[in-house]
């Protein structure tokens, strides 16, 4: 964990369960928190300095990113990094500024994933479609784009499914020619299966996942073990006793002349 990452981390993020998470997940998690996304709604400056228009002096300039809000709906679609910008408009120099929200225009499109062999109706923006064209296909776009720029749970879920399919080779099981084609096309994105199954989980979900996994591996206390053994033994014993009782009864009844009378 880098120093900056440690500063970002509240106490519970470095707690017991977080430490239990696999290293590759933790590395990806910190990267997703520290990495700067590609600016979508503003244009960054090319240089660090500029010449002042009036006095001709060298002046430092800096990028101050415009804050963007990502509503929960953006996790249900692929907005291509777009979000809602909240701010003000100055419509007239003599009038008071007016609050304004710049919202993306969304549309539903049918997109096809080659690896998953699935058609999906997904809410997208024009930017997403442009990015898909730029990447030469939907699968390439999802696999190529970083979590920070994808900015969508749906996108990350699709990424996990694709990477898992690539790692487990579950695509087109009946068509070896097509399988080879897919492998050639998307082989460069392949990662290990253990890593692929952790991609795209939020920290909360990841902790639930690790807890469930650890629950399965938990050592059974000796108390439980001996209890189970004892119960087994007792069950056996009672079974044996029953059978032996029946035998004895029958044996006694066979010998004793009073057996029958006493019972009746």
């Amino acid at each position, binding site marked *: 964990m880098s120093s900056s990452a440690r500063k970002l981390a509240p106490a519970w993020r470095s707690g017991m369960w977080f430490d239990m998470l696999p290293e590759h997940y933790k590395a990806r998690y910190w990267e997703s928190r520290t990495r700067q996304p590609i600016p979508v709604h503003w244009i960054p400056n090319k240089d660090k300095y500029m010449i002042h228009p009036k006095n001709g002096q060298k002046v430092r300039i800096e990028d101050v990113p415009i804050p963007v809000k990502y509503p929960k709906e953006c996790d249900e679609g692929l907005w291509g990094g777009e979000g809602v910008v909240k701010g003000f408009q100055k419509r007239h120099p003599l009038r008071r500024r007016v609050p304004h929200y710049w919202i993306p225009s969304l549309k539903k499109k049918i997109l096809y994933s080659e690896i998953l062999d699935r*058609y999906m109706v997904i809410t997208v923006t024009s*930017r997403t479609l442009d990015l898909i064209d730029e990447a030469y296909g939907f699968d390439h776009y999802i696999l190529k784009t970083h979590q920070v720029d994808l900015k969508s749970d749906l996108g990350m879920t699709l990424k996990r499914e694709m990477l898992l399919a690539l790692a487990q080779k579950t695509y087109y099981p009946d068509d070896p020619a097509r399988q080879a084609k897919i492998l050639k096309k998307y082989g460069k994105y392949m990662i290990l299966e253990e890593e692929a199954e952790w991609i795209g989980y939020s920290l909360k979900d990841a902790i639930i996942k690790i807890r469930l996994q650890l629950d399965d591996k938990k050592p059974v206390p000796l108390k439980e073990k001996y209890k189970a053994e004892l119960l087994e033994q007792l069950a056996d014993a009672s079974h044996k006793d029953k059978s032996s009782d029946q035998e004895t009864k029958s044996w006694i009844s066979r010998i004793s002349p009073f057996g029958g009378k006493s019972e009746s």
Partner: protein
Amino acid sequence: MLRVLSTLVRTRSPLFLTKTSPSSQTLLLDRQAACEGLEVHQTRNTWILKRKWTPPLNKLPRYEDDKRRRHLPSRFHVYELVEHRDSVPLKPLEVLLVENVEGIGMKGDIVKVKLNLARDQLLPSGQAVYCSPENLEDYADLIEKRKKEIEDAEGPTRSAFVETTLKYLQQMRLNITMNRNNPWTITKNHIAVSFRKAGVVVPEYAITMPNDPITSDNPRDFEIQLMVNRTDEVTVPCHMFLYASGNVNRAAPDDKGAYGKLAEAEMSTPDQPTNPSP
């Protein structure tokens, strides 16, 4: 050596069935030019903003990864629109055709098409693929095959516009206007001129006339055969119109001239359509 050059039927530009056979490349270029010209319409796209007032500079970072920033008051959240690509023309997309697509191109052609056509139709249906370096490598033999086909062909090759042209020719009815007073015999030149008036350029050698000649003594509706690319044949019905302009010496009612004969023929066969096609 016959080839359709362009099929911009909707714009009423003439269809060419010319003797000069343009290479497939010209065809594609034509299409690209058309597509670039037409593809300008409104799109809603990303908002790109900038601050109206520049905030004061932050202090230089004291240590590595110093992320501290000054708090910005509301006036620094007044934004101006830099660019909303509201009416930016959509750039046409270059795709590689994997199948023959009517009106667009043949298998192995690289064509520029309208963006939405590619996204909604050609790419999802598998008729075309993106022109990515990998795809160009994968389909290299397909592209080469198509190139060879164009180069090696002695005569014209069957282009993607043949079907569209055939459809257009099949639905049309050719009106031939002739003089009512003077004697004439219809030749291929008359047919070609009539086609040109209807917006289709046809060379004379592509026309096959009916066996018995049509003269001013015996004006009637007839059918001609058109050969497209020397591969496909279409039958086009022709309708005669007799016309005289200016100070006309109308024929006497008892003297049945050409007009009178035509009228008679129409009366006797009421099934035949008399209205000229639009």
